């Protein structure tokens, strides 16, 4: 089918690229301790990008009977399209090695997924009888293909399996406790460990702790660290450079963050949620270091933004069939440091430990501003976790925060697209109702 679309587009005098994806997704869901639903999704579609008279057009379809309309629409849109500054890549000699599926994931029956979810619900309830648990397991198995007029032919498969669980307790308001595990490597879920983590939070949540508005040492546990990294992910996007909007413009080579910060975008991580040997334009993927010991090393590009910025693609084209490529992150890795959580907590007389936040992304993200409500967080008093805090807000600027990191945890958590340790800050502004 890809070849047929390509030929039709070329017959219209265009250079073309066809991207297709064919995905099979299965989700089983438990809500409030009970089986709720099993959902499957079979999704297939084609995206066509053409370059005609030096201009780019794009169309997409999930209807294999609409190939003629697809080609016509792409040619039509190219009349108004952007000037094209790039060439479609030809076949490269070799692709990097990366594991993107395990047969155990592909072969896993739905009934086994339901069984695991049930085991997790039971394990959590055995520890915390009053809790209501939601569990979902989602398997995605997909094949992507890219062909273009420069002779490129690429095809690869990826299978992922992810588990997420949320416990809900009523204790002086509602308390949510979330956990996640990436099971794409093929093993069973760590039921005991996940249940223990939910139990720890549930036990602490029974006690209400109070913290007055002020400046405190704050530990961002791995689950809360992505809220701090989103502004950086936006800032390093080549599209923001092209638009003149990134605060990082003109700062390549400058030390902007603490030297404990080593941040990379790595699509070549085995069994990563976004891992792939090549990107959405067929360019070989690689590990792109974004900040090396605090020094900003460069932006992420696809072909079009690289051409517009006078740079080379970093193999970072992200897309699905229904939209043209854009630069995007794959799996983000923050390198571990040498701090142990127990030691860091011992050193805190009065402070805060944050597991989860809501409200990230509401402020001026591009400028690095964050303002988050702590939805799951605990007071630290004389080195010990004393109880749950409510109505607590942390606001600041991540470029300033990350320029002064007191400690980086020694263990990296796999959160799907984020692979991060905990971060500790010596003094952050914390606003509460106390």
């Amino acid at each position, binding site marked *: 089918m890809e070849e047929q679309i390509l030929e039709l587009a070329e017959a219209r005098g265009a250079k073309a690229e066809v991207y297709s994806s064919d995905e099979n997704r299965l989700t089983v869901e438990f809500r409030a301790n009970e089986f709720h639903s099993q959902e499957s999704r079979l999704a297939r579609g084609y995206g066509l990008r053409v370059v005609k008279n030096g201009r780019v057009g794009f169309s997409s379809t999930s*209807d294999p009977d609409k190939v003629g309309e697809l080609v016509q629409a792409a040619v039509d849109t190219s009349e108004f399209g952007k000037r094209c500054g790039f060439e479609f890549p030809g076949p490269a000699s070799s692709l990097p090695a990366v594991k993107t599926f395990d047969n155990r994931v592909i072969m896993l029956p739905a009934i086994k997924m339901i069984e695991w979810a049930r085991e997790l619900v039971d394990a959590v309830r055995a520890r915390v009888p009053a809790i209501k648990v939601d569990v979902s397991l989602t398997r995605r198995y997909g094949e992507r293909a890219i062909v273009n007029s420069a002779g490129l032919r690429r095809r690869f498969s990826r299978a992922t399996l992810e588990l997420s669980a949320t416990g809900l307790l009523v204790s002086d308001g509602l308390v949510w406790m979330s956990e996640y595990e990436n099971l794409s490597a093929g093993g069973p879920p760590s039921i005991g460990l996940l249940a223990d983590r939910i139990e720890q939070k549930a036990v602490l949540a029974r006690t209400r702790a109070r913290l007055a508005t002020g400046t405190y040492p704050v530990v961002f546990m791995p689950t809360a660290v992505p809220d701090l990294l989103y502004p950086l992910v936006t800032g390093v996007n080549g599209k923001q450079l092209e638009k003149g909007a990134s605060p990082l413009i003109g700062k390549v080579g400058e030390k902007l963050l603490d030297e404990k910060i080593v941040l990379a975008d790595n699509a070549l991580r085995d069994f990563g949620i976004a891992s792939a040997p090549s990107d959405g334009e067929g360019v070989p993927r690689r590990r792109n270091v974004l900040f090396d010991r605090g020094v900003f090393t460069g932006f992420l590009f696809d072909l079009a933004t690289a051409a517009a910025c006078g740079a080379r693609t970093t193999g970072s084209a992200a897309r699905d069939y229904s939209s043209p490529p854009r630069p995007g992150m794959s799996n983000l890795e923050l390198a571990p440091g040498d701090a142990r959580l127990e030691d860091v907590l011992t050193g805190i007389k009065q402070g805060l430990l944050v597991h989860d936040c809501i409200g990230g992304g509401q402020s001026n993200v591009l400028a690095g501003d964050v303002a988050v409500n702590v939805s799951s967080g605990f007071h630290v008093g004389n080195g010990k976790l004393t109880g749950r805090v409510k109505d607590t807000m942390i606001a600041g600027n991540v470029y300033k925060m990350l320029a002064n990191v007191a400690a980086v945890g020694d263990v990296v958590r796999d959160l799907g697209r984020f692979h991060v340790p905990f971060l500790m800050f010596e003094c952050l502004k914390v606003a509460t109702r106390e």
Partner: protein
Amino acid sequence: MDNLKPFLTQVLAGVASQYADIRVEESDETDIVYRGQELDQVERSFERGGCIRVFHQGNWGTASFNQVDEKLEGLARDVASAVEAMPAKPETLGSLPALTDSVTIPEADDPRKVPLEDKHALIKHYNDILLKTPGVTTTMSAYEDKFRRSSFLSSEGRFITQDSVYTGFVCRAVARDGTNVQDYHDTFGKTAGFSSLLNREVMVERIAKVALDLLKAEPVTAGRYDVIIDQELAGVFAHEAFGHLSEADFLAANERLRELMKVGNKYGVDELSIVDDGTMPGERGSFRYDDEGSAAERTELIKEGRIAGHLHDRQSAQRMSERPTGNARAVSYRFAPIVRMRNTFIEPRGYNIEDMLDSVENGLYVCGSRGGMTELESFTFSSQYARLIEHGRQTKLMRDVILSGNVFETLKNIKMIGDDLVMFGGLGGCGKNGQAPLPVGLGAPHLLIRNVVIGGK
């Protein structure tokens, strides 16, 4: 895709579960986006796909697909056998009578008949109005249209084909004075044809003007104020703060909220009525049938200050022993429908804006919405701008005005309800459980609310 009934009947024929339905959709969408002087995006997409749902003894199985062919019979049987293997729960869906109906749109409203160059010329024209305004440094202007045809068949023998059309645009102007950068946007969109977007120059000129005015605005001082909120912000309040709490799937999971939202509970002045209505012609959240084949209707959520009803799909209605209200909606064929709003608004009453201004000694007149968040009954909304009210007169322009509070307390503090209801649609829409953006409408007259917490920077 003419009459799919025989084909869909065949697909469901092998399913013996308590209930099953299948929905097949086709859509054709055009998007054009300008950023500053440059055309950033011009795209067209043709989608076709569908979704099968099976309900048996309290359990749901669903499957969405793109391939519409005879293999769907096997898929339907697979979904059914998976659901039938689950432990039974004592729950039913109720029943709806068999029905055949077909909903079409006027041919003149079909955006597929409008040449791409006309669509491009229109959004370029509006974008140029912003760009040629001195002081505007950059812009974003987007055009979008969508034609959707869905065919629905249930095992109860309800067969409905329904065409719908969405067109709209959004314009944003950014103004800069040194390091002071301000922006303002507005959007227009309905379930109507391309021609509804023409002659909107006044709206676009105002976008540029407000962005420039905001350069001179002062940040507001935090505190408690008496506020008049405009029709758009009041509509967002009705939708975000109150409407979501009326969604019965959410209530089913939360005992305390169910208590708070009990029919008869009094939360406002006798004049206060809030309605969710799927039948308003042309509004962005209107349709004839929802995505599980229930007819859309007008549902009173608050009447004379008291809780009067909830929003339901078939399952939640059955669970709460109420009637389905036609609120089961899916953002596309890839999803099973869930309980969603349609056009949510506060009904107009007798006051005009002058009456309201006269009764505010010191306060704020707060306009527009930049979004916000709600967590159960707490809400936080950012407005686009506000004017200080001093001795009943509007004075200085203020920015960064954020309203927050408890929805039930705030409803009780609504003291005057205006006579000037306006409905809003526009591009974008509502998000819930990963399904976004769902087209909805919202609106209200001006409201006077006493004692609102205003946060500033």
